[in-house]
């Protein structure tokens, strides 16, 4: 086992982490500001992936398809907010879970009706194919490197928007005291719609980048959603910073666990025991980690400050 291998696995972990972050960011914003549990957030990730494939076939240009898919997912997100989600803010969490679970079923069937149940073909754009030599002897796929860069850029952008702009100020204010913000003459309804659409677009960005490496198919969002929920619980619900840290930590723990847990176990227990325990343990590692975080910091690593 060499240092290069560890570095490469850490890059893999980072890549998984930023992918999780893109979806987690929107989910945690919506939870933090609207106090809404949105299980259908994974569906918006799926919608983004489908739009990406559809617009690529239509325009033939990857850049154009990304722009159009982002815009389309933003619109879908805002429509979902106006039509379905808006009525749920005043309900309790159980109602929200039930209703948004219904949305998952709706969207899965919808894409199956529109695009069919079979997985769609989505390939890496030729310009981003191939490898880049990051260090001597360390070749990394360009596309995955681009995902890392885009994810980190989005994180930076989000930080600037939330902490340095007027809309960011409103978002933070809306999160900590909704009534006061409304009393000061801010259109909270519109603010919520914009935030929801924005979160949807982020999830859509994750989905359309995931399309070429994962499978574009109905239900592709659910597997990811579970990990994303772990991310926001670890990071602290409602906190963008927490989502970023949580996502990277979960990505790292999951990837490094899958790669190195078995060989490490083999040095402690017998190889056959490691063979059977290793994979099982690796797949539950992030949940063990979540349980540990909850035990020591029930509010998550970076809880959002709120008063209600």
């Amino acid at each position, binding site marked *: 086992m060499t240092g290069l291998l560890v570095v490469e696995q850490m890059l893999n972990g980072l890549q*998984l982490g930023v992918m999780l972050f893109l979806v987690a960011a929107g989910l945690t914003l919506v939870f933090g500001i609207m106090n809404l549990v949105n299980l259908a957030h994974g569906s918006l990730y799926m919608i983004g992936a489908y739009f990406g494939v559809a617009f690529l076939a239509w325009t033939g240009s990857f850049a154009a398809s990304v722009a159009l898919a982002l815009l389309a997912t933003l619109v879908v997100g805002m429509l979902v907010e106006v039509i379905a989600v808006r009525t749920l803010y005043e309900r309790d969490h159980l109602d929200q879970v039930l209703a948004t679970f219904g949305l998952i079923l709706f969207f899965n069937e919808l894409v199956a009706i529109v695009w069919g149940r079979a997985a769609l073909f989505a390939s890496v754009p030729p310009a981003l194919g191939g490898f880049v030599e990051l260090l001597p002897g360390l070749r990394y796929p360009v596309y995955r490197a681009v995902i890392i860069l885009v994810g980190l850029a989005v994180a930076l952008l989000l930080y600037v928007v939330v902490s340095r702009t007027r809309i960011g100020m409103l978002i933070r204010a809306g999160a900590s005291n909704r009534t006061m913000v409304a009393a000061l003459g801010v259109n909270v309804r519109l603010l919520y719609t914009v935030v929801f659409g924005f979160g949807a677009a982020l999830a859509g960005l994750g989905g359309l980048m995931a399309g*070429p490496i994962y499978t574009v198919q109905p*239900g592709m969002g659910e597997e990811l959603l579970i990990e994303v929920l772990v991310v926001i619980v670890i990071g602290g619900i409602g906190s963008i910073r927490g989502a970023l840290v949580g996502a990277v930590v979960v990505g790292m723990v999951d990837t490094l666990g899958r790669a190195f847990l078995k060989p490490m176990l083999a040095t402690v227990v017998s190889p056959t025991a490691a063979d059977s325990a290793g994979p099982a343990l690796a797949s539950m590692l992030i949940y063990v980690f979540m349980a540990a975080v909850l035990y020591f910091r029930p509010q998550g690593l970076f809880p959002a400050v709120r008063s209600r």
Partner: protein
Amino acid sequence: MRTIRSAIVLALVAALLVVQARAAEPVKIGFITSLSGPAGIIGKHMKDSVELALDHLGRKVGGLDTEIIYGDDQRKPDVGKQLADEMLKKHRVNFVSGVIWSNVMLAVAPTVTGAGTIMVGTNAGPHELAGKMCHELYFTTSWQNDQTPEAMGKYMQDQGLTDVYAMAPNYAAGKDMISGFKRYFKGKVVAEVYTKLGQQDYQAEITQLRAANPKVVFVFYPGDMGIQFLKQYAQAGLREQIPLYSVYTVDEISIPAVGDAALGNLETRYWSPDLKNEANARYVGDFKKKFGYTPTFYGAQSYDGIMLIDSAVRAVKGDLSNKKGMVAAMRKADFKSTRGRFTYNHNHHPIQNFYLLRSVKGAGGEIEMQIQKTVFENHKDAYHQDCPMKW
């Protein structure tokens, strides 16, 4: 007078009800598969094939009116078991069929056979059910899990390959696949890696694989997992470096989604769309005509499952209470299977041929699987000696 008249009316109504009940008693088949989520595409192939089988039978299985109750197991054993319970108790089905995943099958089959109902599996073939847990009321129209990788192991052994890196999802069938492979492959296995069932990203495992630098890779990644693995393997640039051999990974479900990333790959199977026999030509031809896509082995097995049930119900002339008679009829495998004629071993698992297939560019420019040669003839599974059932 009034009492007599109402008594007559009552008697008439009662008689009518009895007649109706008898005339309308249909054969009920519960069909469990995965219809939602990423594995839903496999379920669609199976469901469409069941519907085609019903069309071919004039919507009458064994000459009786037929009712099919579909259930979606969501790839979860507990959900599968609940569905089986519901089908048995609420719908009072005469047969339960289907089931893609071995872990689901291990929960469903004992529930069904334990209730005295016949189970016809049409995909999963966990070794327990072929060996110690074999049951008079349990049949399968597919295979025992180990058999297909045994054929691949045999082929790779004959090719003199060595230094194999083996990968599979971490569940009942994944373990069976690797142990079946190793039964006939005697070369060196560098590593056995088990990943989470339903995993999406294999980048960490592929990085480890490249670092281990094996000469050959052997994988079992069915359905959505196969699509992801094949793509990511190609994207990692390993397709040109390390040859990939697989079972249940390159098929009519994954090929349209991965394109050239599966071209030229080798697989072993008991069936292929280009297998030459009358029943298969009819199945594949009508399937393409009705649904507009190419069927898979998942579908062929499910079609066979309905045909097997049809043969059993016909043999007892529609007397669904005669389970002994139906079991005896099913043991003969007296129906036109899409794989051609086959026989049942004493553990109710097929004795059948296994072929080597390659994905090639077909006449229409689309990638399709073609049979290259026969690896095993009349191949029995490795667990039948453990099955105490004799007949």
